[in-house]
C-alpha cells in the first residue's frame, strides 16, 4: 500500500520534474538583446531571434513569440550563426584516413569511418562549430568522397547534411610520400604506387581518361562505382576538392581543371600569394589552410596574410582547421586571419556564410535568416577576440553545448 502510494507520488513528482524539462526542448526559444552577426556585415543590435522546430522561425526587430516560448535576454553578449569548418578530420581515428590498398579510390566514402561519439566533435562543438566537412585523407591521389555533418544530433544519420559531398583529389608530394622505386626482388604495395609528382599526375590523367572513355562507350559495359564517381566529376555533377599547397601544385590543379573541365575547389593553397593572378582568373574558391600555422606540411612556405590577400582579390575564401596539426579551434583561426590583415567582417563571414556557399549548403546553414537551420552560438564577447568564450551552442534548434541560465 505504502509502496504503491509512494510509487504514485514518485511518478507524479517525476512527471512534474521531468515534464516541463522534457518539453522545454520542444518549446520555442526567443533570444533578445544580443549583438547579432547574421552572416555578413557588422554586428547589429535590436534583433530578436525566434527558434522553433529546429529552424529560425523569425529574425528581426519585432518578433512575436508564442506564449510558451522560453525567453533569454542576452544583454552584452554576441550571437553568430553556427560556425562551419570547411575541412576537418572530426570523428576519425587519425588526422588522415586513407584506404591505401589503392591510390585511386574515388568511391570510398569517409562517412563510413566516422565515429559520431568521438570527442573531437564535442570539442569542436563547444568552440562554436555546428557544421563540419569531414574528408578522406591525403595519401591517395583520389581519396574518396567527403561528407558534411552537424557536430551534434540524435544519430549520425540525422546529422548528415550532405552525403558524398565532394571528391577529394590530392596533388603535391603527399600521395607519393613514403613510396619508393622497386629496387628489391620482393615488391609490396608501396613499390607499385607513384613515387613523385609525375606518377601522381599520371594516375589522375589515366583515371579521368578511362572514365571519359567509359562514359562515351557505346558498349553496355558495367561501370564500376569508382568510374561512376569520376564520370560525375567530368560531368560537373560533383565538385573536386583539390589539395594543392605549393605554387606549382596550385597551377597544376588549375591546368587539370581546364584540361578535363572539372569543377574544382582549391584546398589549402598555401602559396596562393605567388599564383594569385591564376586563381583570380580561374574564378575558383579556396578553402584556406589555418592562418595560425606557419610551418609547412610538405615544404610549402606559409605567409601571414594569404587569406586576406585572397579575400581582397575577390576570391571566395573560407578557413579550415584541416588535419588539425597545430591548428587552433576555427574561431581562433579567424582571429589569426584578422591578425594577418583580414577585415573583421570578412573573417566572420569566412567561418559562416562563405563556407556555406562554397560547400553548397547555404540553403540550410551559414546565415541567420527566416527558415534556416537554427544553428547559432552565443559568445561572451566579440568571437574574434581570443578572450571570448562560447556560452551556448544551438544545433538544429536544440541547445547542444553550454547553457544560458546564468
Amino acid at each position, binding site marked *: 500500500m505504502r509502496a504503491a502510494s509512494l510509487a504514485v507520488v514518485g511518478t507524479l513528482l517525476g512527471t512534474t520534474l521531468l515534464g516541463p524539462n522534457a518539453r522545454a526542448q520542444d518549446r520555442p526559444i526567443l533570444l533578445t538583446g544580443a549583438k547579432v552577426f547574421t552572416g555578413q556585415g557588422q554586428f547589429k543590435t535590436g534583433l530578436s531571434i525566434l527558434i522553433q522546430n529546429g529552424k529560425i522561425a523569425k529574425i528581426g526587430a519585432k518578433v512575436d513569440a508564442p506564449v510558451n516560448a522560453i525567453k533569454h535576454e542576452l544583454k552584452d553578449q554576441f550571437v553568430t550563426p553556427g560556425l562551419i569548418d570547411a575541412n576537418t578530420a572530426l570523428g576519425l581515428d587519425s588526422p588522415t584516413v586513407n584506404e591505401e590498398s589503392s591510390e585511386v579510390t574515388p568511391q570510398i566514402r569517409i562517412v563510413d569511418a566516422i565515429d559520431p561519439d568521438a*570527442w573531437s566533435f*564535442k*570539442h569542436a562543438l*563547444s568552440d562554436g562549430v555546428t557544421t563540419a566537412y569531414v574528408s578522406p585523407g591525403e595519401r591517395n591521389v583520389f581519396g574518396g568522397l567527403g561528407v558534411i555533418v552537424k557536430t551534434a544530433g540524435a544519430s549520425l544519420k540525422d546529422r548528415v547534411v550532405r552525403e558524398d559531398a565532394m571528391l577529394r583529389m590530392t596533388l603535391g608530394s603527399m600521395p607519393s610520400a613514403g613510396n619508393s622505386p622497386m629496387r628489391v626482388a620482393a615488391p609490396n604495395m608501396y613499390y607499385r604506387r607513384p613515387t613523385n609528382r609525375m606518377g601522381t599526375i599520371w594516375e589522375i590523367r589515366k583515371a579521368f581518361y578511362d572514365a571519359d572513355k567509359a562514359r562515351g562507350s557505346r558498349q553496355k559495359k558495367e561501370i564500376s562505382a569508382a568510374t561512376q564517381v569520376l564520370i560525375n566529376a567530368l560531368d560537373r555533377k560533383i565538385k573536386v576538392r583539390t589539395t594543392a599547397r605549393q*605554387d606549382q601544385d596550385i597551377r597544376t590543379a588549375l591546368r587539370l581543371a581546364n584540361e578535363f573541365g572539372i569543377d574544382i575547389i582549391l584546398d589549402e593553397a598555401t*602559396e596562393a*600569394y*605567388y599564383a*594569385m593572378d591564376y586563381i583570380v582568373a580561374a574564378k575558383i574558391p579556396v578553402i584556406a589552410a589555418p592562418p*595560425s*600555422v*606557419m*610551418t*609547412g606540411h610538405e*615544404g610549402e*612556405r*606559409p*605567409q*601571414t*596574410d594569404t587569406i586576406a*590577400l585572397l579575400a581582397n582579390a575577390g576570391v571566395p575564401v573560407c578557413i579550415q582547421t584541416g588535419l588539425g596539426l*597545430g*591548428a*587552433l579551434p576555427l574561431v*581562433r583561426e579567424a*582571429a*589569426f586571419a*584578422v*591578425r*594577418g*590583415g583580414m577585415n573583421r567582417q570578412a573573417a566572420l563571414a569566412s567561418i559562416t556564410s562563405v563556407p556555406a556557399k562554397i560547400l553548397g549548403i547555404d540553403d540550410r546553414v551559414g546565415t541567420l535568416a527566416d527558415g534556416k537551420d537554427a544553428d547559432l552560438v552565443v559568445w561572451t564577447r566579440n568571437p*574574434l*577576440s*581570443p*578572450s*571570448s*568564450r562560447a556560452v551556448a551552442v544551438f544545433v538544429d534548434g536544440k541547445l547542444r553545448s553550454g547553457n544560458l541560465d546564468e
Partner: protein
Amino acid sequence: MIQKLTTLAASAVFLASTVAAQEVLAIKAGTVNLGTGQTPMENAVILIKDGRIEQIGTKIEVPWNARVIDASGKYVMPAWVQAHSFGGLDISNEAIQVTPFLSVMDSIDPVNSYFEGCRRAGIGIIHVMPGNACAIGGRGVVVRPFGKTPEQMAIIQEAGMKMSLEPSSGGRSKHVADLRRALDDAKAHMEDLARQKKEFEQDKANSATTEANFVIEDKIDPLKAPLVDVVVNKKTTAYLYIPRASDVPVAIDLYRDYQFKTVFVLGPECYKAAKLLKSAQDKWQIPMIIDSRLEVTERDPITGKETEVCTAKAYYDAGLIFALSATGESYSRRMHYVRNPSASSARSTRAQALPWWQVATCVRWGIPEEVAIAAFTTIPASILGMSDRIGTLEKGMDADLQILAAEPLEPESQVEKLIVQGEVIYDRSTDPRVKELSGIKTSAPEKNGK
C-alpha cells in the same frame, strides 16, 4: 637578489650608437596602460631620457629638441617580461647532468631567431637559462633581446641557477640523488674550508705556519662556488623545474632540507598539485612560473572522457600567484617546444608563443584581465628582483614599453615598436621578416632543402 649590474658599461655601448646622452625621446600615445592597475591614461606623453622614464602624464610639454614618436591612436603598455626561458642558446643543455659552473653567457647566440621573435612579440626582458634536461644546469642571464654580443644584451650577467627534476636518462631516484649529492658536496666543501681555517688558526697560534692568513673566499673551488652561492650563502636564486604534479612534493622536500632561495618553474601537468603549491607559496613565499601550454586535454583512461583544463585557471582558483611564459613569434620552421613526458596531452601551437594569446587565454577562462597582464609584467619583474626597474611605466623606471596597434587582447594588437631602456629595438614597419612573410610575391618562394 639584484646582482652586480653591468648597466652603465653595457648600455653606454648601446645608447651611444643611436641616442645621444642628453637627447630626450618623447612618445605621444593614444592610450597608456601603466601596469599599475590605474585606469589607462588617454592622450598621454612619455618623456624618456638616459634610458629611463623622466616624466609620464597627460599635461606634459614636449621639449623642443626631443625626438618624437607619434603613437596617437595606439596603445602603449609595459614591455612583456619573461622570467624563465631557454631559447636563443646553441643547445639548451650539456650532456653532463650537474654543471653549476656553466653560464648561458657562453652559449647565447645574439642572432638566433628566438630573440628576433621576442622583439616581434613585445617581450623586452628575458631571463635566459639552461634547459630542463639537467639536474643543475648553470647560471642564467637576464637580457634584452637586442645586441651584437651577449655582453651587449646582458642586463644582469649572473642571474639564477637552473635546476631540474626532469631525468634525462634513467629514473627519478638517481636524478634526485645526484642533485642532492651536488648540494651536499657544496655544503661539505664549505664545512671543510671552515675546518681548515680553524686548523690554520690553531697552527698560527702555535706558530706552526708561516702563512699570513687563510681567506675562505680565496680557497673555494671555482667549480663549486656557484652552488655555494645557492645553498650556503643564499645569494643566488635557484630556478627549479618541476615536470609533473608528483614531483612537487620532491621539490618541497628539497626546499625544506636545503632552505635555498628558489623559484618553481612548473611543467604543464603541475596544476594537479595546485593546492600543495599554494601552501608552499604561502609558507615560504616561493614565486612560481607556469609553462606556456595553458590548455591541457585530460583523457579519462577508463571512460575515454576528454576534459579541457586551463592550467592558469586551476592555479588562479587555488589562489596561487604566478608568472606566465611564451616563446616569441620567431616564425621558425621548426617548433622548438620541449618534449615533456606527461600523461595528459598539452596542445602545442604557434599561438602560445605569443604573450598576447597567453593573456587572452587566461581571460577567456575567467581570470581577470589585470591579473593576466600582471602575470606577464609586474610579477615576473618581481621574480627577477627588478620591480624597481621594469614591469610598470612610472617616473624613474627603465623605459621598457611596447606600442601596439590595438588594445592588447584584440587580434589586431601587433607590436609596432618595442622600446627597451629607451632604445627602439624593434620597428614593425622595417621588420624584414614581416615583409618576407606577407604580400603578393612575383618571384618564387624560397624552399628549404627538405
